[in-house]
C-alpha cells in the first residue's frame, strides 16, 4: 500500500528539489515513514477524541472499570510496531550503505573547512571562484562547480573546529572533523544551482558559512576546471582574486568588501606605522606583509594578539602570489578605513 501511495503523493512536497541519486531513495523512505506515522497517529487521535467524548464524565453516566488488561491486543500493539520499525531500519541502513560505499572512478574534490569559509580544490589543483549573492546576509559565496551525471567524491578536512558539509538538494551530509579525513560521495543527476550549508555549529558566523553548488554539463565543467587554475596577469587583479580565494576576506576588510571579521582591516594601512603587541612599532610595508602572511604571530598587531588565530600561509602561496597580494593591499593605501565598524 505504502509503495503505491509513495508514487502518488506529490513527490517533493516536503523537500527541496532532489538533484542526486540519493534523493529518490531518501524521499521514498521518508514518504513511506510519513504515511506510517499518519497510519498510527490519526487513529490514535481519533480514538482519543472519541473516548474523550463518549466516556466524558456526566450526570447519569457511569464507566465500567473492567477493561484493564487484554493480552491479545497488547501483543498486537507490540508486534505490529516492531515489524514496522524493523522494515524502516532495514531500508534506512541499506540506503546508508549506498551512501557510505564510495564507488571507483569518481570526480574528486578536496574540501577544507575553516571558520567560516569553505575552500574547494579541484583535481587539477584549481581553486573555487566566488560569486556574488543577493538578498542574503552575505554578499558573496564560494562556488563549487560539479559535472552532471558523475560520481563525486568529497574529501574533507577541517583546519579548526567541527563543521558539517550539507547539500539539501543532494540529501547528503557529513561532518568535517579536525584531525582526520572524512569522505562522502554522491551522484549528480540534475543541472542547477544549489545551496550548501555548514550544519555543525562552529562559532560566530556559523550561519554565514554557506556556499553555492553549481551542477553543469560535462563540457562546461571542463571549462570551469581550466578557468580555476588561471589567475589574472595583472598583479592587482590577481591579488584581489587571491584575497577572496584564500579566505583573507573572511577576517580582513578591504575596500568595501570582506568581513568585519576578527582580523584588522587592510584599508588605509599601507605605509603607516603599526603598533605591535610587544609594544614596538614597525612600518606596514612589503616586508611586514610578507612576514605576516608566512608567520602571522611573529609581529602581531596590538589588540589582535589573542583574537582568532590566523594560520600561516607558508607553503600555500607561491612567491609571486604573495607579491600580488602585496600589490592589492598597497592599492588600498587610501581606502576609507571608516568602513570598518
Amino acid at each position, binding site marked *: 500500500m505504502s509503495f503505491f501511495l509513495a508514487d502518488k503523493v506529490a513527490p517533493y512536497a516536503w523537500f527541496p528539489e532532489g538533484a542526486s541519486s540519493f534523493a529518490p531513495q531518501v524521499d521514498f523512505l521518508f514518504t513511506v515513514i510519513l504515511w506510517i506515522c499518519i497510519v498510527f497517529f490519526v487513529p490514535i487521535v481519533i480514538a482519543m477524541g472519541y473516548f474523550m467524548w463518549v466516556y466524558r464524565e456526566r450526570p447519569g453516566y457511569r464507566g465500567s472499570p473492567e477493561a484493564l488488561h487484554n493480552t491479545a491486543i497488547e501483543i498486537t500493539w507490540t508486534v505490529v510496531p516492531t515489524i514496522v520499525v524493523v522494515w524502516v531500519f532495514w531500508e534506512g541502513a541499506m540506503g546508508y550503505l549506498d551512501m557510505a560505499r564510495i564507488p571507483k572512478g569518481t570526480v574528486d574534490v578536496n574540501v577544507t573547512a575553516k571558520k567560516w569559509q569553505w575552500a574547494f580544490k579541484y583535481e587539477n589543483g584549481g581553486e573555487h571562484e566566488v560569486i556574488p549573492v543577493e538578498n542574503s546576509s552575505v554578499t558573496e559565496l564560494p562556488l563549487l562547480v560539479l559535472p552532471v551525471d558523475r560520481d563525486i567524491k568529497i574529501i574533507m578536512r577541517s583546519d579548526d573546529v567541527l563543521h558539517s558539509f550539507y547539500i539539501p538538494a543532494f540529501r547528503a551530509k557529513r561532518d568535517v572533523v579536525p584531525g582526520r579525513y572524512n569522505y562522502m560521495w554522491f551522484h549528480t543527476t540534475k543541472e542547477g544551482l544549489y545551496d550548501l550549508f555548514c550544519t555543525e555549529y562552529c562559532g560566530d558566523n556559523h550561519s554565514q558559512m554557506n556556499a553555492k553548488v553549481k551542477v553543469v554539463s560535462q563540457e562546461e565543467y571542463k571549462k570551469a576546471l581550466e578557468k580555476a587554475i588561471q589567475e589574472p596577469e595583472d598583479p592587482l587583479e590577481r591579488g584581489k582574486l587571491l584575497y577572496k580565494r584564500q579566505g583573507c576576506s573572511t577576517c580582513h576588510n578591504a575596500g568595501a568588501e570582506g568581513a568585519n571579521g576578527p582580523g584588522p582591516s587592510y584599508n588605509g594601512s599601507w605605509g603607516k606605522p603599526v603598533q605591535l603587541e610587544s609594544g614596538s612599532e614597525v612600518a606596514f610595508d612589503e616586508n611586514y606583509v610578507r612576514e605576516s602572511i*608566512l*608567520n602571522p604571530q*611573529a609581529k602581531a598587531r596590538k589588540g589582535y594578539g589573542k583574537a582568532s588565530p590566523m594560520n*600561516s600561509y*607558508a*607553503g*600555500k602561496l607561491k612567491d609571486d602570489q604573495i607579491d600580488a597580494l602585496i600589490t592589492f593591499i598597497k592599492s588600498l593605501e587610501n581606502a576609507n578605513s571608516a568602513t570598518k565598524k
Partner: protein
Amino acid sequence: MTAIQENLAHVVDDHADHHHEHPSWLAHHFDDAEQQYDSGKLGMWLFLVTEVLFFSGMFCAYALYRNRNPEVFEFCSSFLNEKLGAINTGVLLFSSLTMAWAVRAAQLRQHQLLVGMLGATLGCAAIFLGVKAVEYSHKWELGLLPGKLYVAQLDGAHGPHKGYLEFICTVPAIITALCALYAIYAFATKSLFHQRVAGPMLVAGLCFFGGVGLGQYLEAQEEASKGHGGHAAGHEHHAMVDGHVDHGSHEHAAAPESVHAAETKTAAEIAASSSASMGGSPNVYVSPIELKTPNADVNQRSMAGLFFSIYYCMTGVHAIHIIGGMIVITWLIVKAAREEFHEQYFGPVDNVGLYWHLVDFIWIYLFPLLYLIT
C-alpha cells in the same frame, strides 16, 4: 560517603510520636537497625557504581589512545618508576587489610583496636600520598607534563626546575604541625578521647613524610642504577640535567641518544628516532606534515603529552579519592574514639571500608596499566 553520614543521622526531631523507642543512633524514619544498615549499604554500593562509571571514562580514554599509539605508551611508561608503583600497591593493599579488620573490630566492640586499625589505614594512605608526591615532583622537574605543557627534551635550553617537592609538601607540613599541636594538647589535658584522635592523626602526618623519604630514596637508587646505563628513563633525565640537548642542532642531540638507544629496548630506539626527526629552524613555520603512521615521532607534545595527560588524570583523580577517604576515616576515628560503634551500628565503618576498598580496587588496575607496559 554522604550516604554514610545519613546513616548515623542523630535526628532528634520535635515530632516524637514513635511507637517504640528510637535509640540515638537510629534515624527517626527507619524502623529498625537492620533497615538503616541495609539502606546505608545499598546507598554505598550505588555510590560505588557511580565511581566505577566515573573512572570508566578515563579507562576508555586510556584504551583508545593506547590502542592507537601503543609505542607512545611503551616509551612513556619507561619514565614511571615501577618500584615506587609496586610499593604503593603494597601499601594500599595493607591499608585495605587494616580497613577490613577495622570493620571486624567495630562489629565486636573492640574500640581500642578499631581506633588503631583506622589509624593504620590513615597512615598507609599518607605514605601512599608521600610516595606519589615524589613521583609527581620528579616528573615535573623533567618537564613530563600533561598535554601541551609537555616540555621534556623538546627544548634543550630548558633546564631542570627544582622545588616542586617542597611546594607539594607545604600543606602536609602545616597539617602535620597542627596535628602535633593537637597531640600536645591532648596529652597535656590527659583526655583519652583527644589522645585517641590526635595520635593517629599525628602518625599519619609523619607517615606522609616517611613516604616522601622512601620515595626519594628509591628514586635516587633508580637514577644511580640506570642514569648512565642507557635506560630510556634514566637517559632522559641525564640529558635534561646536563642540558646537552641543543635544539638548534638536532643531529648533535640525536647522536648520543642513539648510542644509548642501541643498548636498550625498543622504547629507547623510538626516543632516538623521535629526536632525530625533530628538525627545522624554530623561527619558520613549517606546515604540518600529515603522517599516516604516528610511529615517527614519539617524544613530543602531541604524542607523549597525551600519555601523561591520561597518567595525571587517572592518578590525580585517584589521589583526590585517597584524600577524600582520609577525611572520612578521620571522622570515623573521632566517632570510634567516642566508642559509638557496636554490632547494631557499624554501618559507617563498613561503608567507608567499601569506599576505601574501591579506591584500592581502582589502583589494582592503574598499576599494571600505567607502570608495567613493556
